[in-house]
């Protein structure tokens, strides 16, 4: 590939510019006439971006304030997912019997969409917030479970032999040998889980109408402010990207030889 100075900056900018151009032209087609053009989107979204933390009313707040609501919510659900998923993955990785018992169940439950879990959550918890938390946790924990189990299975026998020869206690073997050995796999699971949790939150907010980026998106769709839908989509994408980068940095710090 040809490279030139600042290509890392210029090439992505070219890509963004191409998309903007496409976006500018698309509404010219009668079918897509409802799509707001880039400049119009910017004009209408400006108050939400320039005053990102403003609170003008329950459904009329700065975009970062909404993002903050969503993030705090996502972290609650994510924490729940890790709390359940990590030990579950460890048990599945360590015990062949358990793995045989529950692996088919996991494979069946894993592809179920958050949209399917949410109504069940509402039935179980009778309130929107815990139902949404339930959904986020349930949908986002699978990568953690599966990667943790894979990580535990991949622990070299050599390391376990060392633990045996030193006659480490069960707890010491777990915390000083198995956990550090499985950690790189686990963090990959954590990163994928966080991405899923962020994906689920938007769906959950839309259906339960809780304040947040997803809730805002749905409400602006109802009130025909289509520019804000695009604002929300871009925000969701940027935040998701940011979260993934952040987790990658953490992940690489825990990578052992």
């Amino acid at each position: 590939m040809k490279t030139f100075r600042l290509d890392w900056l210029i090439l992505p900018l070219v890509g963004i510019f191409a998309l903007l151009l496409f976006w500018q032209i698309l509404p010219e087609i009668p079918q897509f006439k409802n799509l707001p053009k880039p400049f119009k989107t910017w004009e209408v979204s400006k108050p939400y971006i320039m005053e990102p933390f403003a609170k003008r009313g329950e459904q009329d707040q700065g975009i970062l304030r909404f993002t903050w609501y969503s993030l705090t919510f996502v972290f609650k659900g994510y924490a729940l997912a890790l709390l359940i998923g990590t030990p579950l993955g460890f048990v599945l990785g360590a015990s062949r019997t358990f793995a045989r018992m529950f692996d088919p169940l996991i494979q069946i439950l894993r592809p179920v969409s958050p949209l399917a879990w949410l109504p069940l959550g509402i039935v179980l918890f009778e309130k929107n917030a815990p139902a949404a938390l339930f959904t986020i946790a349930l949908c986002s924990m699978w990568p953690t479970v599966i990667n943790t189990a894979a990580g535990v299975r991949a622990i070299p026998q050599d390391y376990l032999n060392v633990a045996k020869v030193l006659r480490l206690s069960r707890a010491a073997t777990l915390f000083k040998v198995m956990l550090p050995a499985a950690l790189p796999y686990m963090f990959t699971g954590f990163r994928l889980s966080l991405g899923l949790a962020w994906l689920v939150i938007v769906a959950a907010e839309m259906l339960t109408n809780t304040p947040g980026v997803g809730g805002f998106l749905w409400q602006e769709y109802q009130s025909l402010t289509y520019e804000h839908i695009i604002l929300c989509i871009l925000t969701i994408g940027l935040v998701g990207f940011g979260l993934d980068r952040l987790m990658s940095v953490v992940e690489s710090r825990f990578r052992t030889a």
Partner: protein
Amino acid sequence: MARPFLELKNVSKRFGPNEVLRDVNLSVSEGEFVAIVGYSGSGKTTLVNLIAGLLTPDSGQVLLNGTGIAGPGPDRGVVFQNYSLLPWLTVAENIALAVDRVNPNWPAARRREHVAKNIALVNLSAAAGKRPAELSGGMKQRVAVARALAMDPKILLLDEPLSALDALTRATLQDEIERLRGESGKTILLITNDVDEGILLADRIIPLSAGPGATLGPAVAVEISRPRDRKLLNTQTDYHAIRREVLGYLLGPGGRRAVKVSRLLVLPEIEPDDLDSKFPGTPRPLRAREVHREEMNIGL
């Protein structure tokens, strides 16, 4: 001879259908350095794992000081072939893991001192803060030796500790092992595939026959006075006699058994195909004269 320190009585071990060790008898007295020389894949590591307690024999007994062993323990320091250092811990931390386990009652300062002492013993003080990935193979193996020594074991089990190293590093580490033996006076069992290594280091060399169903051959005493000089070793008359004896067993009675393999050969068809056949290409039954059974001997 005094009561054997380590004793194996008719130990056999099989993994599923594969018989690995058959009727292994071994006795090692205290302070002795015994080298077991054998083919790769003949069950040397299985033998070490049995003595270490990582495996239990199917039949027979492993006795240490007259009592049967129950599982692994810090009285037997094992140096594994592939170092087995924990990559997320530094050299000092890897050794501290062993020290903390064996001497939990020592004050922290004494444990730290003990770790440092053992690192110094293998000349690695400068690398104490490094992780295994930053070390060369020889250095890693030194750490593994230091970790085993730090537990102050009664016997040191060295499972092909040098076979992954280049010849020069090997020689340095051989000298190191010889020095450690002299200083600590520990009982050492060295597993190796190099007869010369055994002659250089050991008091006795025992050949392990080729598997399956490997067993120990007659022991050969190495009565060459220490310190033994690698450069002068092959000028000693004993050297050649020992070498001949060990290799004689390994290549002779303890060698790979010849295996008879038979296979079916189908000779090429010489009849033309019937082009008008309704089912062209349909295989017809083989005739007896087309089939040829061939037998051949594989092995030495």
